[in-house]
């Protein structure tokens, strides 16, 4: 991955900055330029919006055969997470036994290393999720 490609998305990946449609109030992550509810009315009216980082597991899987960038890191869990703001995203679940992950589990975002460009390349960080504090 090019460094610029990674750098452009630092706000989203480090701080979960999505967008809010200022017409209908719907919150999106990843950010969107147009709100699918309001379409042309929303053009130019999408504002940055920082997600709280908490959500619920809607579905999950354990990746046993990883892509080359994640070689040596499997097995790891990938989940579809419904954020408390209503939008969904895809992320890893960490800091727990893989067997304990379940649909309905409350999770919170944490800042982690995601992947790297080989031994000498850039290290890419971003969000993963862990079990939310009670």
């Amino acid at each position, binding site marked *: 991955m090019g460094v610029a490609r990674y750098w452009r998305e630092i706000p989203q990946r480090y701080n979960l900055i999505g967008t809010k449609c200022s017409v209908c109030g719907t919150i999106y992550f990843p950010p969107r330029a147009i709100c699918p509810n309001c379409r042309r009315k929303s053009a130019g009216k999408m504002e940055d919006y920082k997600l709280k980082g908490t959500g619920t597991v809607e579905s999950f899987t354990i990746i046993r055969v*990883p892509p080359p*960038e994640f070689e040596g890191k499997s097995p790891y869990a990938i989940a579809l997470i419904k954020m408390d703001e209503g939008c969904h995203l895809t992320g890893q679940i960490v800091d727990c036994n893989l067997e304990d992950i379940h649909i309905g589990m409350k999770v919170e975002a944490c800042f982690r290393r995601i992947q790297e460009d080989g031994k000498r390349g850039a290290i890419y960080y971003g969000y993963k999720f862990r079990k939310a504090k009670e």
Partner: protein
Amino acid sequence: MRDVAIIGIGMTEFGELWEKSFRELVAEAGVRAIMDAGIEGEEIDAMYIGGMSSGMFVGQEHVGPLAVEVAGLEDLHIPATRVEGACASGGIALHQGYISVASGMYDIVVVGGAEKMTDVAGGSATNILASASDREWEAFFGATFPGLYALMATYHMHKYGTTPEQLASVAVKNHYNGSTNPKAQFKRKITVEDVLKSPLVADPLHLLDCSPVSDGAAAAILAPVEVAKKYTDKLVRIKASAMACDTLSLHGRERFDALPAAIHAAKKAYEKAGVGPKDIDLAEVHDCFTIAEIIAIEDLGFVERGRGGPATEEGITSLHGEIPVNTSGGLKSKGHPVGATGIAQLNEIVLQLRGEAGERQVKDAQIGLTHNVGGSGGTAVVNIMEVI
């Protein structure tokens, strides 16, 4: 709009075809279809070729002129367009070819699809296939392609009680069908136990829940029905061709237990054709993973939502069931050279409707359907064919 018929079909064997290049695969499928149609090369007006990623698989883009050159048609300078929609590329080529003939723009059109996937190592193939998902918001975080379908499987199992055995029964059925298809990559029968004992790729999907990495190409020749009568008595007409798109990412969709784009394409195709799910005699559906076929037969209305698993286990979709699904062996057993798949599905339906499917012939097949999906459901193409 004019009625469009399929006057010729052809495909290569699917599999790990190390001795054959991308170019040779394109040539073989194209020539077979032209021979089958009984047309001369100079009658061809245009070509549409589906391919997902020849650029990453073999370092070759610009597939249009490659196809023109292998067909020896460069002197005629016919237009050839490569179309891409991940694993639905072949279906899109058919859809585009259909539009071009139906509109009156062209008469004889070649639609094809090709992919040469085994020139790269397994890890690279995984990475290339991940480009059908959302690279920045899915693959970046470690989601693989089987992983996305596994998310749908976990969701479906939780919501409807679908079991691993029911998932496995899709693979068992499709391998049984594929065992009678000389073009299939895997011609061996398997059992539910074989599937469940194979290694997990992305829970709950085992290796034998997944379609393979394959090489292969397929082609078909389209013509207006009036012109088609000149070439063949066994006329198969495209009753409807519909395509629909959705979000690129799975997480962006309105639901995870279905592919809304497939539901939408099916609805449009049924409306255009003036038929419903009960009128379909057989279907080739996009079983890139076993869960995908279960969701497909629900999206197409063959069974009620949530009943895909039990229905498969009960044999409703088996070769001699109420609605035979993937008589060719499907992507699972026939193989899945991604760009070729949509056209290979058409090959099977045309064979069946002509009554030329041999051992796996569905009796009195009159109306057949193809369901071709790109990515985790970002693109879907549904075509309905009938004997006339």
